[in-house]
């Protein structure tokens, strides 16, 4: 781990999301549903120098490992991110995020008249297209600001 990364304290167990594009750390927290109210211990480094990205953000979340759907959405705002799973201070798993083909049940469709925004027993489904996401039900696009459409955000 580089000297720069040590500016943010090590965690014992949990997830380190590294190589997040500079300025996206708070959106990562939104995707993870972290707003400080439920007691997680979170460390955030913003605009840290990076050999690969120039500048990057880092998010470290104590006692939490990300679900596949969280990683899917994360990949949209932080396509260069690496997900490090830490147990007892050791990185036991290190994965690059991969752009998914679909994002299911994580985002709300921005079209208020889409059937998925009603009271129906159906999860939202988005196909990942070249420049964003497309609702599989009504066809509406999300091009940016994915974090704004996270369910419950």
């Amino acid at each position, binding site marked *: 781990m580089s000297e720069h990364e040590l500016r943010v304290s090590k965690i014992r167990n949990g997830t380190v999301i590294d190589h997040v594009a500079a300025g996206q750390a708070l959106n990562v927290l939104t995707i993870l549903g972290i707003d400080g109210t439920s007691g997680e211990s979170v460390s955030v480094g913003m605009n840290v120098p990076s050999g690969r990205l120039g500048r990057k953000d880092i998010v470290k979340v104590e006692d939490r490992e990300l679900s596949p759907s969280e990683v899917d959405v994360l990949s949209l705002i932080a396509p260069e991110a690496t997900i490090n799973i830490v147990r007892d201070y050791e990185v036991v798993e290190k994965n690059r995020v991969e752009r998914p083909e679909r994002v299911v049940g994580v985002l709300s469709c921005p079209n208020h008249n889409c*059937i998925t925004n009603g009271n*129906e027993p*159906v999860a939202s489904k988005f196909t990942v297209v070249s420049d964003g996401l497309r609702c599989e039900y009504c066809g509406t696009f999300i091009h940016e600001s994915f974090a704004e459409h996270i369910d419950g955000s």
Partner: protein
Amino acid sequence: MRHDHLISAAQLSRDDIEAVLDRAAEIDADPAAVRERHAGTVLALCFFEPSTRTKMSFDTAMKRLGGETIDMGSVESSSVKKGETLADTARVIEGYADAIVLRHPSEGSAKMASEFVDVPLVNAGDGAGQHPSQTLLDLYTIRENAGLDDITVGIMGDLKYGRTVHSLSMALTNFDVRQHFVSPESLRLPRSVRYDLHEAGAQVREHEELAGILPELDVLYVTRIQRERFPDEREYREVAGEYQIDPDILAEAKESLTVMHPLPRVDEIDPAVDETPHAQYFEQAHNGVPVRMALLDTLLSQGGRDR
């Protein structure tokens, strides 16, 4: 056509379309030949929005194939009023009918409902989304009047919310058709439709005025500019007035121009146009029955569940 459901015009290949239109032409020529073809079949008409033409033409189509229809009645008198989900309504009605025709005010409703049923489901309009059975009768009318290749089609009016436009423009990409879209800036095609047209390699141009391209057109498809879309009545009147056609305007058109409209019209086509050879909108509406007979025959003959 190898689909269990008809949800979007994007599902339809050129072969699918031609097969349904050819079948419709056969039925049109000899309706007696199919009089008992689907005897005992029950079609459920589930209309969560008011409808006259679409509902009645599906009703007539099923009956002329020898089948019967059931109708959930108005939304106010149905269990929907009690808060039942569309998914539950569809699952219940599936038990009563061999096929379902659904109109619903929400985009994506037909796709969602189709995921809960095994019987064929036809999207008869989902909000501002799609209306693919209308498209089939539109294509039938275009084919009868102008052919479906090497033609120029103008589509004018409310392109943003007009589901018949969204379906028709997509289906036309299967043919050698130059498409011109004419609308106020605020009612241009939605981004999703323009994306699909681009992906399909369609030849598309957008305009705010009809005059410049009218002489090129073989078909002019007019839709209603909906008053309720405008927050300001005066703004509506100013815009709507720009998109009305009358015999004087059509003097600039080809003699063979076919004028179509999914109906109902309000004042976007002067009644004087009805008397000209251009007017095909009533014929277009009449074509709804043989085309929907052909569509139902196709869907019911190929799939659905075993009974």
